């Protein structure tokens, strides 16, 4: 399983099927919560995840695809689009420099 230190995260990519629907919704939420950390948050189609992504945030339904596209990148899967604990873990890890795994 790939791991990364929260402090080494420079770019978080939220992926969904087309890269322009549900992922965009999460980008604005995450950007707000990561304001001031200097971490870039972007969205992309799951088959077009850019190679410079440090962490990939993706719905569990597309988790397998994301892992096959970027096997060496940490994938943070979530279930709920609002208030999923996965987002809290991610934000916390980035802000406090903890290790992210997955």
């Amino acid at each position: 399983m790939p791991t990364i230190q929260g402090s080494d995260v420079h770019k978080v990519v939220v992926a969904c099927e087309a890269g322009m629907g549900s992922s965009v919704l999460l980008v604005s939420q995450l950007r707000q919560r990561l304001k001031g950390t200097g971490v870039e948050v972007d969205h992309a189609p799951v088959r077009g995840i850019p190679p410079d992504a440090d962490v990939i945030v993706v719905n569990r339904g597309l988790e397998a695809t994301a892992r096959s596209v970027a096997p060496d990148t940490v994938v943070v899967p979530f279930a709920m689009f609002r208030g999923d604990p996965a987002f809290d873990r991610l934000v916390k890890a980035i802000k406090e420099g903890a290790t992210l795994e997955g």
Partner: protein
Amino acid sequence: MSMALPVPVPVATGGWRARVQRFGGFLAGMVIPNIGAILAWGLLTAFVIPTGWTPNAKLAQMVGPLITFLLPILIGYTGGYLVYGQRGAVVGAIGTAGVAVGSSVPQFIGAMIMGPLGGLVIKEFDNRTQEHVPTGFEMLVNNFSAGIIGAGLAILAFWAIGPAVEHASTALGHAVNFLINHTLLPLVSIIVEPAKVLFLNNAINHGVLAPLGVAKAAKHGKAIEFMIESNPGPGLGLLTAYWFFGPRSIRPSAPGAIIIQFFGGIHEVYFPYVLMRPILIVGMIAGGMAGVLTFLVTHAGLVATPSPGSIFAYLAETPKGGYFGVLAGVAVGAIVSFLVNSFLLKLTSREDEAVEEEVARAETAPASAPAPAPATA
């Protein structure tokens, strides 16, 4: 403000679903980036055709070329791009022109074949020849290979693939018409609603229903095919049921989800609410069927594919004089989904109290792993 249980979502990560999703997702990936163009065509049609809001014979000349050429070629271009970047896109677009010319149906499906095929062929050609091209001849070889392969593919598409797809599209269209004429169309919801919450929504709507709908809308100015998967009513009913009768810890998240789903058109936000209580799929099917039936008996249709499936997209794409059926179908879908899902939530509420207790216990227990922080988003 929103809270959610860390609910295990029973989603298989491999197998047929992953394959269908990969394939369907690829189809949707060709269509979704071009929805702006589909909307332009739909809106223009709604205004300028003889039965539209502001009939204008001169502007109406654009309607045909937009649907026959622009939309398929954009889809083919995008399909080629997905396979092999800009070069794939160009060859895919040339090939798509071959299916579009001389066809009597909008060649969306033909474009979904020719675009990726063009990308694949030129990719394969490049892989085999790249090393053997003498220095200084790269541009010459690149341009002429794309041109020659593109022209060849366009001829193949014109003679073989176009006619084959035309037959297949016509047969599919007849099958859908059979369902419509015999009032069997609501049965489609039995497949569509479960597939939707398994995140096959885009595959179904943009991969299958939109091409069929576009063919019909090009002829009749509106199509019910656009409304089968995208009706925002059933999702609204489900989320409202959760708001009033769901597990207490989840209720506060429902209103926000309603805004995103019903007004924003991002249906994905309601899928987890179904997956955490799978029996609710029955309510979704009931709501979906009731909505489709209402659309059917009121002869409702939209002028283009509503994407995202927001109530605003529905209102914007309703043809002149069609508001009653469109709004009725959304409302009936919402009400039926609300009633059935509320009943099912009540019926299964004992179970989830146990789940909530279990979660509470797990969270208060001295956990070996760090407990998830409380959601404060």
